[in-house]
């Protein structure tokens, strides 16, 4: 009996110690960089004694889960690494803590971070100096290709004979199409291969992120630079229409069979399994691809090709403190630690994409990995989708209309873009912007 009492006492005591321990919860998407962050955070816990619990949500449910949590004023998360497009709603609806005073107090300068990432991940309204997040994970849509196939002399000469230029990193979307279609249906090492795994996902944001990579390269603008929310003739300009038509052509001529609802993981799987010569994906996945290719013989990487202009679709996230958290002080302590240049360097070393200038401007950075230069190039030319508080309302019609045109083959590109503008006008009107 005495032993039982002692055991009971010990377990009660340990429970009480445990419940008194300082801890915070960080929410992010479930992917490789999140694992790297978990590894990095061990040092924070060792330094401060603050435990960090992680909740990683698979990408297809990430936005739903997190935005529901914020809209319900949930206290599950103290820190949130949220998509760049959420910054508008985070600021306007008061989900995120404004960080200006904290940055001033702790001497954290946004000038120490890459301007494109500060603009995209931290500020609202855009271009202002109101900060709601610290740039956490720089990212952009880019391409990986099968370097080992490209290096084969017989394929190189056949390609040159057919197209009159060398098989290599494509300098334009036209060249990309030439190369993708060159590999489409081709037998290599006894297996049938295909051109490119591109974004076609319908449910969340996949096909929009993919098609905008082409639209930006053709020079599309969302709105009249001199008259906000005036989209007619800009979003559906002849260049934008041509880009959407091109994306459909790329899908029809170069995607592997059944690649009709594919995004990050599906593209990665198609590439890793040797089905395709190219994959479109976020930089966040390149450390994983590169890790499996130690001598750099199999895979090469390049930034989004130029067509009329150099541009790339922005990905990435900033880290924000959730307004409804009871542990804002601990969450801010984490941000203070994460902003340190030495921590940012370790973040990059572990496979995260630091946005800190000390890391990016280091002379050794461009050669630190095979994709580092591409990342630098991309971050200088990124463009993002609307970051308005109503971004989900803006995203869904685009997903539907573009998928209907590109995958379903229904209607025309101009018709799809006109339909999107029609829906967007309705959204902006309801939001009082028009």
């Amino acid at each position: 009996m005495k032993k039982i009492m002692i055991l009971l006492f010990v377990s009660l005591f340990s429970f009480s110690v445990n419940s008194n321990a300082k801890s915070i919860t960080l929410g992010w998407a479930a992917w490789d960089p999140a694992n790297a962050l978990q590894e990095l955070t061990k040092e924070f816990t060792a330094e401060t004694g603050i435990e960090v619990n992680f909740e990683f949500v698979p990408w297809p449910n990430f936005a739903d889960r997190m935005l529901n949590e914020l809209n319900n004023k949930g206290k599950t998360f103290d820190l949130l690494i949220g998509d760049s497009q959420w910054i508008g709603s985070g600021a306007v609806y008061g989900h995120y803590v404004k960080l200006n005073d904290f940055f001033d107090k702790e001497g954290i300068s946004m000038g120490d971070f890459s301007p494109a990432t500060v603009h995209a991940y931290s500020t609202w309204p855009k271009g202002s100096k109101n900060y709601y997040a610290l740039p956490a994970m720089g990212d952009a849509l880019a391409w990986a290709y099968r370097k080992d196939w490209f290096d084969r002399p017989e394929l190189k000469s056949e390609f040159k004979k057919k197209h009159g230029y060398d098989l290599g990193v494509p300098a334009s979307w036209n060249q990309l199409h030439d190369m993708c279609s060159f590999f489409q249906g081709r037998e290599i090492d006894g297996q049938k291969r295909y051109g490119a795994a591109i974004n076609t996902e319908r449910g969340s944001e996949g096909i929009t992120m993919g098609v905008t990579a082409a639209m930006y390269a053709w020079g599309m603008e969302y709105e009249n630079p001199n008259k906000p929310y005036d989209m007619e003739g800009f979003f559906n300009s002849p260049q934008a229409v041509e880009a959407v038509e091109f994306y459909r052509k790329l899908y029809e001529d170069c995607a592997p069979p059944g690649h009709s609802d594919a995004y990050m993981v599906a593209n990665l799987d198609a590439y890793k399994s040797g089905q395709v010569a190219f994959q479109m994906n976020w930089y966040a996945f390149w450390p994983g691809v590169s890790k499996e290719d130690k001598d750099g013989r199999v895979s090469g990487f390049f930034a989004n090709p130029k067509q009329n202009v150099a541009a790339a679709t922005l990905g990435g996230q900033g880290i924000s403190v959730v307004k409804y958290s009871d542990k804002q002080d601990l969450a801010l302590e984490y941000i203070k630690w994460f902003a340190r240049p030495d921590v940012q360097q370790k973040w990059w070393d572990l496979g995260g994409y630091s946005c800190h200038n000390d890391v990016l401007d280091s002379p050794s950075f461009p050669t630190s990995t095979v994709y580092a230069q591409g990342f630098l190039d991309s971050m200088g030319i990124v463009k993002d989708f609307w970051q308005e508080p109503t971004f989900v309302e803006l995203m869904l019609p685009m997903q539907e209309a573009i998928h209907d045109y590109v995958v379903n083959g229904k209607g025309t590109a101009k018709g799809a873009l006109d339909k999107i503008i029609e829906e967007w006008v309705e959204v902006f009107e309801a939001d009082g912007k028009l």
Partner: protein
Amino acid sequence: MSVKKKFKGLSDKAVGWLFIGPTVLLLLAINIYPLIYAIKMSFTNFYANKIGRVPEFVGLKNYIKILNKEAIWEKMQVTASFMFWTLLLQAAIGLGLALLLNRKFKGNELLTTLIVLPMMLSPAVVGVFWTYLYNPQVGLFNYVVNFFYDFGSFDMIGSSMLAPWSIVIVDTWMWTPFTMLICLAGLRSVPNYLYEAAEVDRASKWQQFIYITLPSVLPFLLLALLFRGIENFKMFDMVVELTSGGPGSATELASINLKREAFEKWKTGYSSAFAVILFVTIFGFGNVYVKVMNKIKER
């Protein structure tokens, strides 16, 4: 203290209310109140995510907007087509299987268990693994189809012509056993003497089926179809996992569209109006259907 003593002084009616009271309260709280609240919301421009913004009364604006929106009617057509084909196939195949399993043969129990297995699975899981079965490169479904006739590579999920059939096939595969089980219960309730009398009257097997089996099993079949109809009207998880409503909006059922409007766009007022319209539709159809079913039973 005995129950009799405890309730001494209470009328039978009061005791009855005492028993059903908690259930009624629970129903009011989780069914009736949300319904009334949703109806109220449907007359406003409420956005649940726009904190601090006071909803304004907009009258019938949401209803008019929904009923005049071409895209909504497209979703309703997709839903109607999905319901029509799934119910038709499940009725025909379910009844056929029930007739087969109503006979005594070796392995009857094992076959019944195997046929019933799909409906024990989670619809979301079914949706996910059928995406693999439909894969044009490695999918078993495409392989089997091409085994019988070489159609070449085809994409069940990526083609607007085939995608609506892809969800019909999966739903039929999953829920035909349900129709079958209910029909089987109906078949087993038909007294043998009816068939014996028919044999005496020299009725053919076809006549026995038309005049004895079918009328006896029809109320059961209609009941099964009522359940399946209600379920398929609000079908969501399996289709989302399988096609996400695509390609484009080829398989975007009304329930998927409602979820997107309510919990992705957060148009609470608008989606409440849409939910009320869907509720009235299914409630109306359900009532008419039950009346027809009762008339058939009375015959």
